[in-house]
């Protein structure tokens, strides 16, 4: 599904150049749950943002479902994003002024889904995420775990082919963190492709493949076969 070849990304300021991603080679198959780990500043989020087309890269190649992603216009990137990718962020990134229901419905609205269908799909996903009873609340009125569940619901409502999660449990206590991980595991088992950036080995242990980054380079890639029991 995703193929990165020799992909590099350099941040430039007036004085210094920082290589955030250095000749990354890496593939993700459909249905895989990949964790990206590494110390702060190793380039995990940059990698995720590049895959999510939120950020551009300087050299190399990135193909998504067989199509080259280099040199796309902002509009093309936006279209691919909205049709294929769902995002889950550490800080949830919900819009404070919109209710739970409206937040989740927003991607459908941008995808020109009719009002009645929006209604059905949002209700369904909220039920699935067990947050439907809070649909008229605003994000600030929810706990961190609930907010993240709303964020996941929003990421899933368009039935994306790829879910990108950037430290999804980073702002949550262990109970709420577990709930989110359980959710992602369920999704994975239902066939979703997930790439997750995390600091936590515990969280990474839920995934099927773990990639370790250091200074913008892939240090190791290993398949994770350990069975995890939720505590």
């Amino acid at each position, binding site marked *: 599904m995703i193929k990165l070849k020799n992909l590099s990304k350099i941040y430039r300021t007036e004085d210094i150049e920082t290589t955030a991603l250095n000749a990354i080679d890496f593939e993700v198959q459909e249905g895989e749950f990949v964790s990206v780990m590494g110390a702060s500043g190793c380039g995990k*989020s*940059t990698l995720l*943002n590049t895959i*999510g087309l*939120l*950020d551009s890269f300087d050299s190399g190649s990135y193909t998504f479902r067989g199509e080259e992603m280099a040199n796309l216009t902002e*509009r093309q990137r*936006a*279209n691919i*994003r*909205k*049709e294929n990718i769902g*995002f889950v*962020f550490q*800080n949830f*990134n*919900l*819009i*404070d*002024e919109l209710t739970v229901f409206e937040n989740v419905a*927003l*991607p459908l609205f*941008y*995808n020109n889904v009719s009002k009645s269908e929006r209604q059905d799909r949002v209700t369904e996903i909220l039920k699935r995420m067990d947050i439907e009873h809070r649909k008229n609340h605003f994000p600030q009125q929810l706990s961190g775990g609930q907010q993240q569940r709303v964020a996941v619901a*929003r990421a899933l409502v*368009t039935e994306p082919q790829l879910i990108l999660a950037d430290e999804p449990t980073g702002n949550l206590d262990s109970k709420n963190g577990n709930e989110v991980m359980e959710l992602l595991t369920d999704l994975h088992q239902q066939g979703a492709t997930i790439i997750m950036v995390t600091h936590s080995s515990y969280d990474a242990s839920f995934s099927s493949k773990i990639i370790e980054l250091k200074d913008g380079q892939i240090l190791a890639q290993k398949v994770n076969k350990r069975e995890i029991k939720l505590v």
Partner: protein
Amino acid sequence: MINNWFKIFLRNIKKRPLYPMVNLLGLTAGITCFLLAMLYVGSEFSYEKWNPNVDQIYKNIIELPDGQVHVGSPRPLAEVNVAAFEEFTDYTQYKDEGEQLISYGTKDIFSQSSRVSKNFFEFFPFPFKYGDPKTALEHPSNLIITAELAQSIFGDINPVGKEVKINNEKPYTIAGVYELKGNNTQLDYFSAVILLTDKYDENDEWGNFNIHTYYKIPNEFDDAAMTKKLTSFYLENAAKEMNSPIEDVKKYFTMDFYLENIGEMHLFSRGLKGKGTNNIFILSLLSLLLLVMCAINFVNLSISGATQRAKEVAIRKTLGGSKKGITVQFVLEVMFLCLVAFCLSLALVEISLPSFGNLLDVDLHILNVLEYLPLILSTILILIVCAGLFPALYLSNFNPVKVLKGNFSRSKSGTVLKKGLMAFQFAICAVFLIGAFVINAQLKYMNEKDLGFNKEQVMMIEVSDRDALEPKTDMYKRELNKMPGVQKVFMSDRPPGTMARYGSVTRVKYIEDYVTTDIHFIDHEFFPGMEIEILEGRNFLPTELFDTVGVNKVVVNEKFIREFNIEKPIGKTIDLWEQDCEIIGVVKDYISKGFGTDIQPALFAAGYRTSVVMLRLDTEDISQTIAAVEDFWTTKIEPDYPLQYEFLDKDFAALFEQHQKLQTLVSALSAIMVLIALFGLFAVATHSIQQRYKEVAIRKTIGASEAQILGNLIKDFAIICLGAILVALPIAYVLSSRWLEDFTYRIDMPAIPYFVAPLLIFGLTIFIIWMQARKALSVDLVKHLKFE
């Protein structure tokens, strides 16, 4: 500590100059307009206040039953009034002599002149530059002139003792030079005075209201009782002097006598019908609202900018700074900005004062600011309290824990207030912009309305010596008619647009009814020359001159017929000055006194004292034609006088000069107002949209198109703007309707301003938001998604 505050204040300005600069600009504009307006208002209220006797001097005016007000009174009346009523301790009088030619050596200057009582300068103690006010009026051959006139005739020398000639006749000796400058007075329209002799002449009848009379009344009195007393006293005396029964006199002279304090006449005289302060009111309101708008910008920008200062406040509080100290710090910042704005405003006032004074036809000086210093300072103090204290309290109330955790920047506190204030600004702008458009439409209407005559290309020559010229009338008309460029020559004593001029207002009788009527003396070529339509009957024949034929022939206007309700008027006889007159024609009503006064009943008679020669000219080579006319007139007709001429359309335009000034003022101030509001909007929008960068990033991430994001960002402001406009529309309608009511001839309320002004405000609002929102489209998604 103050040093530390000041340092931070300056560094903040350097780092983020947008808000302080917008604040400073807006404040400077607001204070400048406010100062100018206050100078003007102060000047308008200062009329006659220079006079130490102002509280004791009252002018006699009369009001006719139709509401017309005249400032004259019969000359003999003052003496008997002072003898009869103990309230009056003294009186003084003057009589307009019109323009007189004053000659000295080779210099000939026309100057408005008056004859005044010997005690005139006791009532009106204008400072004398030269001569002694006590003795200046002792001799009938003395002439006292204003310093300005003295300057133009004699230059810088002291002219006392110099001999001049008036109208090339009698010599007069300059006995004094008085100063008008700096003294606001209604007596500034004449610049030369000679003695009004003690002897009454044949014009000084009880029925002739041609003298201005002032009484000295030291004590308070009851207005209504005084009017009653003066009116009946006049009728009794007039009846006695005219040897007529009092009932007969009443029919001719139905009027009420009033006394008005000279200090109040300029703005509150009965003749102004309560409209004297209209311009002052509108100007004061506009300038005050401008100041309020600046204060609103101040509050809005300070709240918007607060998040940028939040960290500083939080750290100060953490380190032990008190709430009071922080409040004082921010109030001091506002005070400092106000002070800078005030200094800049003073400079701007100084620069703009001459053109502002020209526009309003007043003489203003920056030093007058000192007179109103308490008012100005208190206004600015209120401004500081409103504009400074609120944001200061708002900032000092920040919760340091929340701020330092980085959890503050998206706080929504103050949003409702900000939106409310912005809506208020939009509403004010819309009201005044609509007002400006309505005023503009009414002025356009007045400029273009069919007046009932053709005012274009009519040159009017003022005859200097009417009596001497009468025998030459046929000759000069014939000669002028022959000149290339001259289409028609006709005459009148009362061209339209020139108010009464020499014409009189008289009670005309038909059967048993009396109607106050404007009397016009014209020649038989006046109606065709002016292109005034004769509806019934006929024009005068050249031989039908008033007072020369057995039965006088007159033409009247439609209004005259309506007032008397005469059926089949042609051939009917009316009574004018106790002479029978036959109506031979009825002309269409025409607007002769401007748009604020209804058409008056008018009676036209031929010949007799037609003092204005009117020439309708070709549009080509006008200057050549004027030169030829001037040459002919000054060599063949009146060689001792320079030619005095005006154009009818210009004279007519002067009738609504006040409204034109108002239009300029309202337009200019509305434009400044809109500009200040847009400044504020720009800064607030910049901040609001910056605050929403993260939201934009989220929306973009989950697939919003550019148009959708733009729409979303613009929506809030558009709703505020539309809401404000909806509130403004009825207010603008009510205010504009009230303004239009002052015009007898007025437009129906135009619909266009109610579309154009809101569209303009809405369009500009959307444009400014759109410009800021465009920037939001290129936000760095990663940065804004990652951090709060």
